């Protein structure tokens, strides 16, 4: 159903067009700002309704404001995406054919990797098997810089991952292209790249790193939600050292100390009573 928009909606859309992607907190603040500026009513929890109204008018142009989770920090983000193409042709206006081929190869590397990363070395080596005009080393490096600048990839310490915006925008394409090959998070059911995998060979479920942190929060002994095997991986947000520290701290905590005091008192009492 197509809804009537106000200047508040338009300002929100213009801003999102300019930045491409924004996190949930910023989106809420922007929603408030846009409504205030154009004296529109702003109901705090109705951001998604507000966006729905915009989406109803964007739909004929195959554009949408979509929500997705960052694999880095677990936060929700809103991105303006192009739904028209079922291919990577959404990038066509900015990249040459052979550059797009290399991007697809990088995507292949990331999808098939365990950690959702592709090293610059592996990407550079993949130019050997290019079918379109081969990219030179310097051209590949320059292309990777542009892909990061244009917010399709992220780079850290020589390794490349898909940006949150890329995942949100390309999810339908990736699901179609890679089908069974792409990992899916057992908890949130979205496609997963940076994730943990159950070590049980007959299970093998995947969970996003932030989803692991949320699901196993506070649990002393994590178990796979599917097969109940011990979950051997480090739970993000707590590391082994801190778990040990937590246990030790617990032992030295006031609660425990008073417990120990009570226990030892009763032992002493017991001993004393034995002697009698």
């Amino acid at each position, binding site marked *: 159903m197509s809804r009537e*928009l106000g*200047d508040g909606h*338009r*300002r929100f*859309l*213009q*801003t999102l*067009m*300019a*930045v491409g992607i*924004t996190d949930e907190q*910023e*989106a809420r*603040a*922007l929603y*408030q*700002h846009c409504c*205030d*500026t154009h004296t529109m009513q702003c109901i705090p929890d109705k951001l998604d309704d507000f966006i729905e109204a*915009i989406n109803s*008018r*964007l739909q*004929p*142009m*195959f*554009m949408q404001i979509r929500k997705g989770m960052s694999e880095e920090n677990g936060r929700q983000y809103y991105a303006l995406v192009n739904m*028209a193409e079922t291919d990577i042709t959404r990038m066509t*206006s900015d990249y040459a054919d052979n550059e797009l081929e290399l991007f697809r190869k990088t995507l292949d590397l990331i999808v098939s990797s365990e950690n959702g990363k592709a090293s610059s070395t592996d990407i550079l080596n993949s130019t050997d098997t290019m079918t379109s005009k081969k990219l030179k080393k310097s051209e590949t490096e320059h292309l990777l810089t542009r892909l990061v600048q244009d917010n399709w990839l992220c780079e850290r310490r020589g390794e490349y991952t898909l940006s949150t915006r890329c995942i949100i925008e390309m999810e339908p394409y990736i699901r179609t292209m890679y089908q069974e090959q792409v990992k899916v998070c057992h908890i949130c059911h979205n496609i997963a790249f940076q994730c943990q995998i159950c070590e049980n060979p007959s299970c093998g479920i995947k969970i996003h790193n932030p989803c692991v942190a949320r699901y196993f929060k506070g649990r002393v002994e994590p178990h796979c939600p599917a097969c109940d095997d011990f979950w051997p991986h480090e739970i993000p947000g707590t590391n082994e050292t801190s778990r040990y520290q937590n246990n030790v701290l617990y032992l030295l905590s006031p609660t425990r100390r008073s417990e120990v005091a009570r226990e030892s008192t009763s032992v002493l009492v017991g001993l004393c009573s034995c002697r009698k």
Partner: protein
Amino acid sequence: MTQRKRLSNVQSSSQSKRQSNSFMTQEEDEDATFTQPSTSQVQRGLEKLTAAQVDQKTAEVVQYILVKDQKKIPVRRADLVKHVIKDYRTVYPEIIKRAMQTFEQVFGLKLVEIDSKNHMYVLVNNLDASTARPSPVERPSNPKMGLLFVILSVIFMKGGVVRENLMWNTLKKLRVDPGQRHEEFGDVRKVITDEFVRQRYLEYVRVPHTEPVEYEFRWGQRSDMEVSKAQILEFMGQLLEQDPQSWTQQYREAHSTASSSQASSSNHR
């Protein structure tokens, strides 16, 4: 998309006022063959099409213009007809009308024909740019816009036209040298005389009867629409710690109804 230079012997006198490095392209040839259909032709054309078809074509036009406008280069009608409109030529005016409506209603943008002779369009912000409080999400700023703003200020304060030598000297004082590669802007001369001109922010016109050839700078059509002269004057006032009203002529021009109706307080998108 390759564009070929052609000898412009057949340029009319009005065209010779434009930059001397203008060129005729294939697209302009095709545009010459596109004649605006009459109202009755449009009506008949619409009868043959379904509402869904017209909506679809409108959506394609909107998408196309949005992508093109990202680079700030005006959209040529000829390109639009060739790449998007195609078989829907007979209903072109209706499609453009609906596209304009979509831009206003959905995006708060205005599709403006910047050149009625050569039929070129640009997108301009329809929303009032000034807000009581700054936006919590800052749109990425382009440093080139800062450079442009300075250039526009110089031109405006100098009465609307500046010889290029004066401009280069002024910029050199700000350590922007057309002869040297700039850290932020790269090839400064190219940005100012080519990029800004193609984007219609500036006009770089040859001064007639000068030997050696000299050029002068004027505001471009996009600047007329997007940049507020009142804002420039405010900026100059702050910079030089003077009351904007002290520049009486410029103040009058900045606040005349003609210039203020074009660009209220809207700035670059």
